[in-house]
Every structure is written in structure tokens, then in C-alpha cells.
């Protein structure tokens, strides 16, 4: 399915979400790029407010035009947070899992995947992950 949003619209939704989060936190005005600089240094500090999932979720909700139900996992290995996030989105009206995919590698066994995952280190990673989620969610909504 063709993505119905331009990269510019996606970046606008991310920026609008960032401004919303700053307002809600009554925080001083600083850019998402500045936040990401701190994020890269302190992402595994339990006191660091990790806003990445919230930015991605709200940006996707804005672009889809309705709030979805979400589950987000910060993927960890034994040495800590890996920088990877996995997202599961559900349509709250129909309870359909919008991030669900199934594959077979051998033509016999079917493997089910409920989540869409991606690593976030830089701003462009956020854009890429929003695009990946939009692509999957819009296809699932179109099939409903």
C-alpha cells in the first residue's frame, strides 16, 4: 500500500507532538534534536524521561486521524536498553491488531508477529519508525 503522507507531513506531526509534550511538562523551549543529544547519553538512566515512545505513538495517531490503543516495549538485553522499541497497535473500536503480520519460511510453519520494531538513535530513526508503523497500520485499516 502507498503511504498517504509525505515525509514533510510526518516531520510536522513529530514536531507538533514534541511541542505538545513540552507544553504538558511546562518545560523550557528546547528542540527535539537537543533532547536527542541527551537521550543518546542517558537513555539507560532510570531517571531519564524517555519520551521517544510517546512522540512516535502520538505522531502516528495524529497522522492516522484517531487514537489507537498501544503497547510499547523498550527492548533490553542483559547489558541494558538496546535502543530498540517494539510497538503493538490495536484499533480500540474493533480490537483488531493493526501491527499483526504472519509469515511462513518453509511453506508449512506459520510464524506470527504482533509488533513493529525499530531502533531509535537519531531524529531520522524516529521518522523511519513512524513511516514503518503508518505503512503497516494503514494497510491493516484498509483491509478491515
Amino acid at each position, binding site marked *: 500500500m502507498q503511504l498517504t503522507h509525505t515525509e514533510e507531513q510526518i516531520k510536522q506531526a513529530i514536531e507538533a507532538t514534541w511541542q505538545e509534550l513540552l507544553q504538558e511538562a511546562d518545560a523550557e523551549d528546547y528542540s527535539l534534536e537537543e533532547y536527542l543529544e541527551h537521550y543518546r547519553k542517558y537513555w539507560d538512566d532510570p531517571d531519564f524521561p524517555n519520551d521517544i515512545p510517546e512522540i512516535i505513538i502520538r505522531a502516528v495517531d495524529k497522522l492516522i486521524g484517531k487514537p489507537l*490503543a498501544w503497547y510499547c516495549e523498550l527492548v533490553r538485553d542483559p547489558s541494558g536498553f538496546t535502543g530498540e522499541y517494539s510497538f503493538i497497535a490495536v484499533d480500540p473500536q474493533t480490537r483488531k491488531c493493526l501491527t*499483526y503480520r*504472519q509469515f511462513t519460511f518453509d511453506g508449512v510453519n506459520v510464524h506470527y508477529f504482533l509488533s513493529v520494531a525499530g531502533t531509535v538513535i537519531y531524529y531520522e530513526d524516529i521518522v523511519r519508525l513512524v513511516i514503518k508503523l503508518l505503512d503497516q497500520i494503514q494497510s491493516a485499516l484498509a483491509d478491515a
Partner: protein
Amino acid sequence: MEREKIVAALEEAFAEISGAEYEDEPITFAEFLESFEKFRDPDFPVYWIPWAVEEAVEELTGRKFGWHEDALKDEWSYTGEFSFICVDPETLKCLTAERSNGSCTVGVVFPILSIDDVVQVVEYFLRLVQQA
């Protein structure tokens, strides 16, 4: 469903998942859970616990489901809580999604530290599948 049947399905699933790991000195799923509760070792194969739940549910219902599981951690170690998300591949419905007070949650979280806890979790999923 009787508890014995559920425990048998869990033990069978656990034996399959743990594979050759405990071949020389076999341990039961109940014993495995006890050692998890005692040590909360960060290297403990903690995901065997939700996988055993999922396999037992599929065995007892005769159906396959899409699953996502997460072993919850605090700053130091596993908390003994697990979150589960279950999707029916036929309808794509998220069986664990729940709407209340205008909001919708996707996953369910259970503490699992004993064989009694795990039996209750399997019973929950069996009810969920039956309702669906």
C-alpha cells in the same frame, strides 16, 4: 478444566522448551519456578515461563495464536511479572485488549512466581479463548 490437565500441559510444554538443558538432572516446571522466585538471577531463562503458558494454552485449545510476551524488570532484576498480548490469527482480534472508561489497554500483566500462579494464567487464557 481440571487443574491436573493444565499442570500436565504446562509440564509437557516446559520439558519441550527447556530441551536438553536439564536432560541429566530433569526438573519440573514447579521446581523451575521455585528457583526463579529464590534467585531472580538476571541470566535466568525467564522467557521459558511465558512460553510454557502459551504452549499449554495452544495445546489445551488445539489452536495457534499470535503472542507477544515481556518479562518485566525493575532497575535490578526481574519482578516476576509478565505481560502478555494474544491475537487470534483467524479474526486478527486482540483477545487481551480491554476497553474501560473510554480507554483501551492492549496487554495483560500477571505475577508468576509459583505453579498456582501459572495455572491461574492458563485458566484466564482458556476463558478468553472460550469467550472469543
